[in-house]
C-alpha cells in the first residue's frame, strides 16, 4: 500500500511500459533496453507522414531520474538527427522535457513544461509533433534553425539525407 521514493519510480515505469506495449500510439515503440534497468529506455520513432522525415526510423534513448515522475527524463536521439529543436549531440529540447521552475530558454510558459501527470507516451507524441512542426524560437541546433527558416529546400534535402541514413542506406 505504501510506496517509497525509488520504487514509486520503478512501479510507474513498469506500468507505463506495460500500457505502451499493449497499446502504443501509431509510429512509436518504447521500452526499457534491459529488464534489469527500468531507468534506461530506448524509443523508436517513425518519421511522421507529410513531413520531410517521412519514411525514416529514428532511435532515441530516454534516461529517467530516480525521482521520476517528479522530474522528466532526458531524451537523446542515437540515430543522426537534423532538426531545429535537437542539439547536435542528439539531446531533444522541448518544453515537456523541462522540469518545472527551470526555464533555460526563457520562452516557455510553465503550462507546457513537465508535470508528474505527464507520461512517456505524451513525451513521444510531443516529439512526433515537434518533428513535424519545429519551433524555431528555441533553436537547439542553430544551423538547422537558420536553414529551416531561410532555405527550406536545403533543409528538406539535408533531412532526406538523414532519413536515408536512419534506414542504413
Amino acid at each position, binding site marked *: *500500500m*505504501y*510506496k*517509497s*521514493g*525509488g*520504487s*514509486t*519510480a*520503478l*512501479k*510507474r515505469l*513498469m*506500468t*507505463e511500459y*506495460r*500500457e505502451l506495449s*499493449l*497499446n502504443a500510439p501509431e509510429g512509436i515503440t518504447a521500452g526499457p533496453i534491459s*529488464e534489469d534497468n527500468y531507468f534506461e529506455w530506448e524509443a523508436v520513432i517513425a518519421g511522421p507522414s507529410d513531413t520531410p522525415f517521412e519514411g525514416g526510423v529514428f532511435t532515441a534513448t530516454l534516461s529517467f531520474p*530516480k*525521482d521520476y*515522475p*517528479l522530474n522528466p527524463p532526458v531524451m537523446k536521439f542515437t540515430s543522426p538527427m537534423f532538426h531545429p529543436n535537437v542539439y547536435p549531440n542528439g539531446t531533444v529540447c522541448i518544453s515537456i522535457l523541462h522540469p*518545472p*521552475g527551470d526555464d533555460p530558454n526563457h520562452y516557455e510558459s*510553465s*503550462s507546457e513544461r513537465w*508535470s*508528474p*501527470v505527464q507520461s512517456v507516451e505524451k513525451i513521444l507524441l510531443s516529439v512526433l509533433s515537434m518533428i513535424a512542426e519545429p519551433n524555431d524560437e528555441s533553436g537547439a541546433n542553430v544551423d538547422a534553425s537558420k536553414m529551416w527558416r531561410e532555405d527550406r529546400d536545403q533543409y528538406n534535402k539535408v533531412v532526406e539525407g538523414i532519413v536515408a541514413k536512419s534506414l542504413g542506406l
Partner: protein
Amino acid sequence: MLIEETLEDPTDWPQDYVHLRHLDQQLRCPICKEYFVTAMAATECGHTFCSLCVRRCLSQESKCPSCRAPLTEGELFPNRLVDSLMRTFRSGRQQLLDTLTAKPEHMNLNSDDYCKRCHTKKENNDEQRKRPRVCTRSMRKADGKVDLTMPGVENITASDIEEMLKDEDSDFEPASNGNTTQKPNSLLAAANSVTCPNCKLPVTQSQINRHLDQCLSGKSTKPTVESMKKQFATAKPNKPIFMLNSQPAKFTLPRPTKLAYSLLSESKLRRTLKELGIPAKGDKQQMQARHIEWVNMYMANADSEIPVSHKVLLKRLAAWEEALGRQADKLDSTADSQEDHATKYADSFAELVAQAQANRKSLQSQ
C-alpha cells in the same frame, strides 16, 4: 521479476469492458498511476492525488500537477469517498476479473457446435417443455452478453429469458468454483434481506417463508440475539483489502514544519534534524532533501485514515533514501558499517586470500 507479477493495472480488464478500464484508471493517482493512498483533493480545482504524491510535487512547485492552477498544501482536503470507493473496487476486483475472463469451455467452440449441443439437449427435454425452443447459446455473444436482436426471439417474454439464463448458469457452473459457491456472498445476502411483515425484523429472502410460517404460528416469536448475530455474521461484507489497524499507531516524534533552508546554516539544520529524531548525516543538500521528504511523509501520514507509527515512518524514510541511491551512511565510517562491509564482502575476501596464497605457493615452487 517478482514486482511485475503483482503489478495490477487498468489493462487487466478485457478490451470489451472499456468502462471498467476507465473506472480502474480513475481510482488511481495521476502521479504514481497506482490506487490512491489517502486521496487528497485540491479545494480550488478539485483534482485528486495521493497525499504523499501531491505533497512531493508541491514542495517542488506550488501548482496543481494536473491543471497548474496555484495550489498550496493548506488547500488540500482528504477525499475519503475516493478512498472507500477504491477499497470497495479493489476488494471485488479479482472476483470480477475472474468472472469476466473465465469463459466456459464451450464458448471457445464455433457457433455450429453450440447448436449441436443444444440440439441434443433439446431432444432430451422436448417432452417436458412445450414452449417454442430457441437456442439460447446462439443468443449469447462471445462476450457473454445476451443479444436480444436475434431473429425469432421477439415473442419471448422476459421471464422466459430469465429462465433460460438460469438454465445456462446451472449448466455451466465451473466445477472449480466450489469455493465461491460455498462462501456466502455477503453483498447479495445483505441485499436479499427483507423485513418480515409480522415481526418487522430483517430476514434473508431464502429464509422468509420458513420464518413466516414459524412467526405466524407463534412458534418463533422473535429471533434471539444469538440468531441475529449468526445472520449478520453471514451478511458481513467482504473483508476490505486494507483492514483498519486495530492497534493505535504510536506517535513519538515531534511534528516537523517546513523550513527556509537557504537561511539555515548546515550545523543548525543538523541540529533541527536531530531534534526531529531523524538521521542527521550527510551534507546540507542531503539533509535538506531528507527534511523535505520527512515533512511530506509526516503530513501524509497525518492525513491518513490509518496512520502508521513513527517507527514505521522512519523505516520508510530510510528506504526512500536508499532507493534514491544516496548513501548518507557512507560519510559516517563507524565500527558498525565496517563490520557490515566485512560480512557483505566476506566471500570476496576469502577468494582474494585464497588467490594470494596460491600465488605465493606458485612463486615458492618456482
